[in-house]
């Protein structure tokens, strides 16, 4: 029996071809983007190193957003520690220079609106030049307002942006790995907390548990904020952990702004057999920028240039 294969990476049929926007040259050199060397992904990176990388991710988010003049600040900043740990703490296996390598672990950003943090992470890992971050949300950029697989950006496994869909896709990937290909790849998916009010999250949870997908780790960015307010005011979600437990997940609750707790959580997730894991990562929206911290009004706004300067001055070390 044969395998019918098609080239699916990179797609790059993007909405109108290969003429990409140019990053602003002055800013590229101001931020030192042309001399940037990618960070290494290693379990040997210390917590301090990962924290530094998280801060650099945060700075890159601010820089991209202030240039874009639209986009989401709060969730991306709040979850930067999760991304730093995943991509630079030796948790995920990938090769930025061979981004579609068939034995890579995969990450799906179910909360598509949080893409600035993913783009910044990928750039810091060397998937594409950092300067490209400055084209975020511009006409024909590979950095779409919500991830578009049609743009062929290395590291973007799926288009997302309609909440509640990415987790189901990740479940399909994990099913493929564990039950069809029977390999040892792992799949990670991140959802917002507001996002888990979408029923597809619970359908996906049922399916993941039914098929014992222990190669799947779901991270819920529990920042208690969504667009219209605090999550418990907009739609009560507590107790989040109990919900996933009742859906037969192994649940780990941790401080999602604490690198060492996150490391331990991912390690534990990798050791669990027979059921998927959900990490309920308690974060603060806008973490690291004083005037954004824990304020839902920063869900979907970019900083002004003054605010960006202030933010960058806070996001040191």
């Amino acid at each position, binding site marked *: 029996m044969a395998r019918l294969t098609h080239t699916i990476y990179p797609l790059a049929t993007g909405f109108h071809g290969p003429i990409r926007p140019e990053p602003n040259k002055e800013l590229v050199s101001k931020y030192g983007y042309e001399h940037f060397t990618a960070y290494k992904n290693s379990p040997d990176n210390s917590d301090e190193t990962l924290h530094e990388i998280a801060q650099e991710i945060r700075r890159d988010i601010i820089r991209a957003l202030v240039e874009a003049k639209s986009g989401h600040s709060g969730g991306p900043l709040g979850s930067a520690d999760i991304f730093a740990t995943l991509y630079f703490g030796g948790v995920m296996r990938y090769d930025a220079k061979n981004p579609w390598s068939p034995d890579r672990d995969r990450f799906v950003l179910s909360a598509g609106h949080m893409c600035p943090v993913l783009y910044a992470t990928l750039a810091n890992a060397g998937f594409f030049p950092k300067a490209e971050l400055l084209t975020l949300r511009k*006409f024909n950029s590979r950095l779409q307002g919500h991830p578009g697989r049609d743009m062929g950006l290395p590291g973007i496994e799926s288009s997302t942006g309609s909440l509640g869909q990415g987790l189901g896709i990740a479940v399909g990937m994990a099913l493929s790995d564990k039950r069809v290909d029977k390999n040892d790849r792992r799949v990670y998916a991140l959802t917002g907390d507001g996002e888990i009010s979408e029923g597809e999250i619970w359908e996906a949870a049922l399916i993941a548990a039914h098929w014992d997908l222990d190669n799947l780790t779901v991270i819920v960015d529990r920042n208690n904020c969504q667009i219209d307010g605090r999550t418990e005011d907009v*739609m009560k979600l507590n107790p989040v952990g109990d919900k996933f437990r009742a859906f037969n997940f192994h649940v780990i609750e941790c401080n999602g702004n604490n690198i060492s707790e996150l490391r331990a959580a991912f390690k534990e997730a990798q050791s669990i057999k027979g059921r998927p894991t959900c990490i309920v990562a308690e974060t603060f929206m806008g973490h690291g920028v004083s005037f954004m911290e824990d304020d839902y009004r920063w869900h979907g706004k970019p900083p002004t240039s003054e605010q960006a300067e202030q933010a960058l001055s806070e996001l040191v070390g």
Partner: protein
Amino acid sequence: MAVAEVLNRSISQTLSTNGSAPRFEMNGKKATRFGFGEGLVVLGEKYDNVVVLGGDITGSVMTSYFKDKFPERFFSMGITEATATLVASGLALSGMIPFFATYGAFASCRNTDMIRISLAYNDANVKIGGGHAGISVGEDGATHQALEEMAIIRVMPNMTLVVPCDFLEAKKATIAIGEHYGPCYIRFGRSDVPSFTREDTPFEIGKAQTFKDGNDVAIIACGPMVWEALVAAYELEAEGVSARVINMATIKPIDRLAIVRAAGECKAIVTAEEHQVTAGLGGAVSEVLAQELPTPIEFVGVKDTFGGSGKPDELMKYFGLTSADIKSAVQKVLKRKQ
């Protein structure tokens, strides 16, 4: 068909009462979503059984106005578009007049089965508001640019679908669907677009309005493309082409008579919509004329592709949705005219 007979009788009469009406002028810019928001407040003031369901984007689709004014009749549903639609159905079956609004991509796609069965088949008196229509959404990109709703809603029996052309019409249309029995969908946009209709410009569900008379070609448009059509028509007038502009604010039920009259009198049609050219307004007009009076039509709209990030203007230009594109379509259809 009856319509064809009506046509035979009226075909060479000029129908237009607007023929001598003053030109529409741009009177600032304002997004249609604000009209929706204000219309809801008017309804809320008038009727105590009007209630609104929030989908965690109340500030984007302007249900926030109603929420601020009538907090006790506003209910947050979180991010549950499918079930919010069902809850609306249950409220309607209890005698309420519920509005549920979110981005059009989710207001028509996340809950399509619910619209089909719990609204349309149930004939429940629910009003769905779909915001962020079309690519003029801008930077958010393809996932958030609703370009398919007109096809999806139009194919459902019992549904009424309105697409207002500017702020003021959006307000009138919102009030009109609130007072009309049955499941309705209203489509509105995020970005500021020209305001040009006046307080006395009529709006009636199911009735097209001729916004400019003309007999060489009829441009049938909906939503903010009506303004683009007017601009195109005024420019064409200067170039000696007499273009009629029809505001097809109700897509379902569609005003068959206005379409057939336009075809009979102008013998060439251009449709313009911020939507896929497949199965939307162009499709609806084509269906009517194929059955009543086959006529050359050119379609202005998005040509079966997804949108993308960019500034609204950039995108409208790239995707061919400007008055210039309408003019080219007119030139093309005039060549095909017999």
